[in-house]
């Protein structure tokens, strides 16, 4: 297309759009609404997924875990490992590791004067768990553990109710020691924690790691090392590094430890693709229909263009230009609306009134929209590229040879 034709096509396209301003506004609104729904629904779904992932990773999983072989199949005391050696320590001290901790983690029974319950006993180094897991943030009564050595115990609120015990009371923890004897020890409940999902409150009790090691006669043995990195989706280099410095240990990323989360992520992506497709198909029908109407009512004009010697590709270009203007304006409007919506919902949307039981499956009832550039870019380029592609049909109808009667016979 010669350069001179561009301003001409632009003028024609722009003015023709405003010949039927009502129709133009209607399609602009519909297109913008579609874009808005794509971008903001994506942000909501992403936000919800992001919360689930963050929650699960905080729920002791971390980004990477290291165990003795066999521990993941049978998390018993036999499958313990020695504390990290110098090479592993050096790897864990690298800046790519933002937090790490070694834990004792064994099956146990906790009993009050009235009730008992099967739990997982977790021995932690309290300071190291900050920035790694939820525990420190979740204590709502009493206090967090002060050292690995201390004699106190943290109990989930739900479990405390079940055991009919409370802050300040004593409970007994029993587990199998290294020598196959039953080890037991009394602890005072120094803190009660609240968290979601509820299962976490009933499944875990936390004590100081050294205290646990003494009780189980573990020496300095531990069950697992968990660590965090700055980026949960780029673990490959760290994984191979850890595998090389800890040969014979089982090094696993969160994607292997929590396969359900990966599935959730895949399902989320699929839902978004389906949503995008539905919205886009509806939008392109509207767009093509509007353009076809515009083309049909201007058959005579297109005939006149041809009679005057306008090349068909310019006629094609004129209709595509109309589509381009509609798409660009609608994309701008839709993105702006979506941005405003997401910004307006920064405080979160509380769905608890509609969705009781969400908490049980680990979905928070308050969703914080998370704007993902990649989702928005996908929505925008989908609408733009496929929108223009869909406009090729009406444009071709316009550029097609118009029968001479349409021009010369009144």
């Amino acid at each position, binding site marked *: 297309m*010669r350069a001179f034709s561009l301003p001409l096509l632009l003028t024609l396209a722009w003015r023709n759009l405003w*010949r039927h301003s009502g129709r133009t506004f209607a399609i602009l609104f519909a297109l913008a609404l579609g874009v808005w729904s794509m971008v903001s629904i994506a942000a909501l779904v992403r936000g919800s997924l992001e919360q689930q992932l963050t929650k699960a990773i905080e729920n002791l999983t971390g980004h990477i875990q290291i165990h003795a072989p066999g521990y993941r199949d049978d998390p018993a005391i036999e499958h313990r490992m020695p504390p990290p050696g110098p090479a592993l320590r050096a790897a864990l001290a690298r800046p790519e590791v933002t937090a790490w901790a070694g834990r004792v983690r064994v099956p146990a029974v906790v009993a009050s004067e009235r009730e008992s319950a099967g739990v997982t006993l977790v021995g932690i180094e309290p300071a190291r768990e900050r920035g790694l897991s939820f525990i420190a943030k979740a204590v709502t009564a009493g206090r967090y553990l002060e050292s690995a050595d201390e004699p106190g115990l943290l109990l989930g609120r739900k479990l405390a109710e079940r055991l009919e015990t409370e802050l300040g009371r004593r409970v007994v923890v029993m587990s199998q020691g290294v020598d196959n004897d039953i080890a037991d020890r009394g602890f005072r409940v120094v803190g009660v924690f609240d968290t979601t999902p509820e299962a976490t409150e009933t499944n875990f009790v936390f004590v100081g790691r050294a205290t646990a090691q003494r009780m189980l006669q573990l020496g300095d043995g531990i069950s697992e090392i968990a660590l965090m990195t700055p980026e949960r989706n780029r673990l490959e280099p760290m994984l191979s590094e850890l595998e090389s410095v800890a040969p014979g240990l089982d090094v696993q990323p969160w994607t292997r430890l929590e396969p359900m989360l990966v599935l959730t992520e895949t399902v989320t992506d699929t839902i978004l693709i389906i949503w995008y497709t539905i919205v886009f198909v509806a939008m392109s029908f509207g767009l093509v229909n509007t353009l076809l109407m515009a083309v049909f009512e201007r058959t005579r*004009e297109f005939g006149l263009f041809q*009679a*005057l010697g306008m090349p068909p590709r310019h006629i094609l270009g004129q209709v595509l230009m109309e589509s381009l203007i509609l798409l660009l304006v609608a994309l701008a409007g839709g993105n702006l609306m979506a941005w405003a919506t997401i910004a307006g919902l920064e405080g979160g949307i509380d769905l608890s009134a509609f969705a009781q039981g969400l908490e049980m499956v680990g979905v928070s009832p308050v969703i914080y929209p998370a704007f993902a550039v990649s989702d928005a870019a996908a929505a925008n380029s989908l609408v733009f590229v496929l929108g223009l592609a869909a406009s090729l049909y009406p444009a071709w109808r316009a550029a097609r040879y118009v029968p001479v009667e349409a*021009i*010369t016979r009144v």
Partner: protein
Amino acid sequence: MDQSTEHTVVCRGVSKVYRQDAVAVPALTDVALEIPKQDFVCLSGPSGSGKTTLLNLIGGLDRPTSGEISVDGRRIDLMDKGELAELRLRRIGFVFQAYNLIPVLSARENVEFVMQLQGVSAAERAARARAILKEVGLEGLEDRRPGELSGGQQQRVAVARAIVSEPSLVLADEPTANLDSKTAENLMQLLRHMNTEHSVTFVFSTHDKLVMDFSRRLITLRDGRIVDDVRRE
């Protein structure tokens, strides 16, 4: 030198047969015609006699079923669509009976439109459009859209557009059909003026006696054949 180059239009044995529901409708039969440069020719004849068909064939808007047509010595019956479009753009100006103008463009923009397609610079376009609109008597109305102009004024814009890029031939199919007789007369005077001032060949059609009187040569069609061809000067 080939004698056809002295003629703007040459038709030899031109026939056009329309097919309508498997019925052959002969619209033109064996038409032979030579139109010298700067001629001012009227095609007359009753409705259905083939005037529009002949003008469309000469303008390259439609193709003959058989026969040869040359414009400026070039065989247009042998041209493809792209060449025909180029021919119309560069050498032929059209004035139709109605719907001549692009509704979203002003009078000046309509006149500039063809020059824009031809790649004429903006400054030159503006100067030429202003001059020609003045010549057709539309000074001061340059920025009106077609909807804001009377029928006669619209036809004047169409004439200005047809003439502005100095084609060798202007074809006008019943240009006055929608005008009252006074306006029609003014328009014909304008066409005559353009014919002499700009040395452009004109071929127009009409079945209006008043309009025929402006012609220098009157060709009469009946049932697709030329039945009369007289010089009137």
